[in-house]
């Protein structure tokens, strides 16, 4: 038996075709091409990789959440039509999820790959870091596209869904680190390394950042949670734990989205 049912692959195939022709997706690809190219031209080397990481960690969650939410809003009638076909909801969900997340991930990879191919990348350490950045960006795409499915089932009101998508992004990408900092200031006199570690694992963007900075070997830039992380884990153990946590961060929203999709009324 196949792991992915044939019906899922078929839904994915057609949705992928639709998403890939979307002007927004093309703009998204161009955005990464232009930004990466500019950073390579003017910065070059490790510095440009750090800047690229910062932009990636902001933009990917935002686009996956907002593009995903808008796409699912517009696809509502189409999903109804598909649900009226002899498919199970699980098959349909799988197809919709992959058909949305794969083009987004590919757009990012293409946007990254084109400038680096043009400029060339000689340093093998940088090459490894770039590969890590690519993997992390893809994982974040899968995480936040899944969250868009959770949001789609959460409310019947289009504006509230849009608000939730932006709200989730603001929280994980912007507010979270500020809140962590406030906690550090308040409880700075206590041994808070382990709680900090928990807080870092609880936010996929923080987690991705630490993973990347450990790889880049730039602990000075890691912020408080990252510093705590490196104190407890060094080298490959740290990366392994962070990778396991990121895997969890993909699986949990995907399953949550599936549950919501199965219960939902259309």
């Amino acid at each position, binding site marked *: 038996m196949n792991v992915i049912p044939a019906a899922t692959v*078929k839904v994915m195939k*057609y949705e992928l075709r639709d998403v890939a022709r979307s002007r927004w997706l093309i703009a998204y690809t161009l955005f990464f091409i232009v930004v990466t190219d500019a950073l390579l031209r003017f910065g070059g080397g490790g510095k440009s990789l750090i800047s690229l990481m910062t932009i990636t960690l902001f933009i990917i969650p935002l686009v996956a959440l907002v593009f995903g939410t808008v796409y699912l809003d517009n696809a509502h*009638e189409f999903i109804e039509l598909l649900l*009226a076909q002899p498919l*199970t909801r699980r098959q349909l969900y799988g197809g919709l999820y992959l058909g949305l997340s794969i083009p987004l991930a590919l757009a990012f990879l293409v946007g990254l790959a084109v400038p680096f191919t043009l400029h060339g990348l000689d340093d093998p350490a940088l090459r490894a870091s770039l590969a890590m950045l690519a993997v992390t960006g893809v994982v974040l795409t899968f995480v936040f596209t899944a969250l868009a499915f959770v949001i789609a089932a959460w409310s019947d009101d289009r504006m509230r869904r849009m608000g939730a998508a932006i709200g989730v992004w603001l929280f994980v990408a912007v507010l979270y680190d500020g809140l962590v900092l406030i906690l550090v200031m308040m409880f700075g006199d206590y041994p808070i390394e382990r709680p900090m570690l928990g807080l870092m694992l609880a936010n996929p963007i923080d987690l991705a950042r630490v993973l990347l900075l450990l790889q880049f070997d730039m602990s000075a830039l890691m912020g408080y949670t990252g510093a705590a992380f490196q104190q407890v884990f060094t080298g490959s153990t740290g990366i392994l734990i962070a990778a396991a946590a990121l895997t969890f961060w993909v699986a949990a929203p995907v399953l949550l989205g599936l549950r919501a999709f199965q219960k939902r009324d259309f």
Partner: protein
Amino acid sequence: MIAISGLTKRFGEQEVLRGLDLTVKHGRVTAIVGPNGAGKTTLIKTILGLVRADAGSIRVNGVLVSDDCAYRANIGYMPQIARFPQNLTGAELLAMLRDLRGSRGMSVDGTLDEELIDRFGLAEHLGKPVRTLSGGTRQKVNAVMAFLFAPSLLILDEPTAGLDPAASSVFKDKILTERDAGRTFILSSHFMNELEELADDVVFLLDGVVRYSGAVDDLMRNTRQANLGRAISHLMTMGVAA
């Protein structure tokens, strides 16, 4: 063909279906009528499995509607609003449905019913992306999809709302031909003259229950009205009064 008993559905505070019982006969066109908010669309969506009932049961051809999706291979559905992925072409949409249905190996006896493509003159539009098609043309694609697999049951929700008069006539002829070939139709519409032409049976919904269900001829006789439109508005005023 369809047997529904004790169907209940609540959306938050609002109880949309309140223990609805209904039988739909094979080989007839059953019109579902009722004021806005009576539960027509919810009923249709529950039969299709788009909405999950809180209580009650639906049997289509004796098969209980539940998580098993196989029964939908025998159903053609034409939703009220035709909105498809913007960047796919009509031909791609039809290919997708063929792909999906074919994979289940059901209901497809090799031949597809593409008559409406010719009769609507749709062939020349099928190569264009959906976003460039007019609303009426999209509704024609929608109609083609419902009939494509020659299903034994067709569920049409306000089907002619977006069609021009010529297309509408073609579509109505198609319904009558297919009914005579033994297919069953469930039709929701606000156009009384359309129902007059098409409907064999009438189901009148009010506040989530069936207030009247029977043949059109009987309804006319019982209400002593001149036409179906009058008879149904008679039911509505009586229903509201009751």
